[in-house]
């Protein structure tokens, strides 16, 4: 903590559960380092956790006030009765990469290959890629290739050792893989654009509870403001990134730069989420992802996106 944090004890506390080595921590750390939480009338407490499942359990168990997840998760939980809502955090999506010396030059060369996918068969990037590929060639990518699903680091390794011909991974793994020499064949954001979807629709966001917002509206707004201020600062100030570098776990300057660029690229536009855009994206993914993805939803429930006030 910075100077003067001792007096903050009187301020109300917001607890955010976050992956200790995740990208969310970079923003949270900046909020605390720069005193943005104090400025916005709260004290930020980060509950470090070791995995996404852990953050979701913490949120469902009521142990934390907020975590970062995607709006699909929020929608599914909301449909089952949880009063979760979504405050944009990032638009970052993945992509499909191949080893530098791969013969695969474009999407057409994927036919018959093996693809490693980190998020499972209902990974959002993978579904958008499938929709896009179908639009382009009329065939389902899932039929013309063999898929291997696995944990992100396992997929990273499989791609690097040539066990798979191509890989779809989460963006910060992709950033590292690309920094390590792999080549992006399809950019999911661009594919989304081709499909007529708005690539600036944020996928990841802070999950909050309606009841909590109702109880402490000024706290919720404070969190939203602090997040935005941190994003603005990180978007411009390289010095802030140098401060974050020790917790970013970048192997070299190239990786560091890739991570920084990737994070900045994911900063969502200010203002509320366009529910129609989100609905369109949901429709695309729901068609291919099926029940597993939608959890039985035919459309996004109301109130998934918090307007910020």
């Amino acid at each position: 903590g910075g100077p003067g944090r001792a007096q903050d004890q009187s301020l109300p506390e917001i607890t955010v559960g976050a992956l200790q080595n995740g990208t969310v921590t970079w923003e949270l750390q900046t909020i605390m380092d720069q005193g943005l939480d104090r400025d916005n009338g709260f004290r930020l407490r980060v509950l470090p956790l070791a995995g996404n499942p852990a953050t979701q359990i913490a949120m469902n168990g009521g142990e934390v006030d907020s975590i970062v997840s995607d709006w699909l998760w929020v929608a599914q939980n909301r449909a089952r009765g949880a009063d979760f809502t979504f405050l944009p955090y990032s638009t970052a999506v993945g992509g499909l990469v191949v080893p530098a010396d791969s013969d695969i030059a474009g999407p057409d060369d994927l036919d018959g290959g093996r693809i490693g996918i980190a998020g499972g068969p209902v990974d959002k990037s993978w579904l958008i890629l499938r929709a896009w590929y179908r639009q382009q060639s009329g065939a389902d990518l899932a039929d013309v290739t063999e898929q291997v699903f696995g944990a992100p680091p396992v997929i990273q390794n499989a791609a690097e050792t040539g066990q798979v011909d191509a890989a779809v991974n989460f963006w910060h793994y992709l950033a590292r893989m690309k920094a390590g020499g792999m080549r992006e064949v399809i950019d999911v954001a661009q594919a989304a654009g081709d499909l007529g979807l708005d690539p600036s629709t944020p996928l990841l966001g802070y999950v909050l509870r309606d009841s909590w917002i109702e109880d402490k509206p000024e706290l919720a707004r404070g969190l939203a403001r602090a997040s935005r201020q941190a994003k603005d600062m990180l978007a411009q100030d390289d010095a802030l990134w140098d401060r974050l570098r020790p917790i970013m776990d970048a192997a070299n300057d190239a990786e560091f730069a890739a991570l920084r660029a990737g994070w900045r690229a994911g900063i969502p536009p200010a203002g509320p989420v366009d529910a129609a855009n989100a609905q369109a994206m949901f429709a695309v993914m729901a068609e291919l992802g099926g029940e597993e993805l939608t959890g039985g939803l035919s459309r996004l429930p109301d109130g998934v996106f918090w307007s910020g006030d």
Partner: protein
Amino acid sequence: MPGILSLVAMLVLWVVVARISDDPRTMPGPEAVAMRLWQITVTGELWFHAGMTLFRVLASFALAMAVGVALGLWMGRSRTADQWLNPGLVIALNVPALVIIVLAYIWIGLNEVAAILAVALNKIPVVTVMLREGTRALRPDLDDMATAFRMSRAARLRHVVMPQLAPHVAAAARAGISLIWKIVLVVEFLGRSNGVGFKIHLLFSSFDVAGVLAWALAFVAVMLAIDIVVLRPWEARLSRWRRDED
């Protein structure tokens, strides 16, 4: 009968708890879970994924029991073998499942062989330990008898040693098959594209507790069936000699 009654009692308890907690999201009642179970049964999903998982469970079980029993016997009978192998055993016993699984996937590749080997490697040390302790408790008088009558190694193993180890093997099998299936879940989670573990993790990531319970219970039912149809009768046959009547 008491078995079935107790199942019914558990079911009733579940209904009551679900009613009281009144939160179908984190505490779905049996009806909700049954409906999910019905769904996955009629779509045929259940058979495919449960089949894959069962295949992995049985393959690694067979491998782990064969190697574990042999190692356990050896270490229980020979002090030298025990002294040499014990540190390795304790290490193998305590290396986290995750580490073994990840390393297997990394070194062998993302395939079925790696998956089954990873599970077996997790389980072998446990079987070995159980059999070693059992072997240490073998009756010396029967051993002497076997020596005096110059029984062959095979006959000795089959008629003198194994019957004494039967309770240990039964315990290892029962505790083992359940441990294996738990590890198979992790293995499927980390690097397979089908199986109950794959489904459970998928549903868990969308926090679908009813779905998770449906899959978990489906496979528990399979295990319960194995217990009743295979393990219990086998044990009963093995322990006939303990009974009074003839």
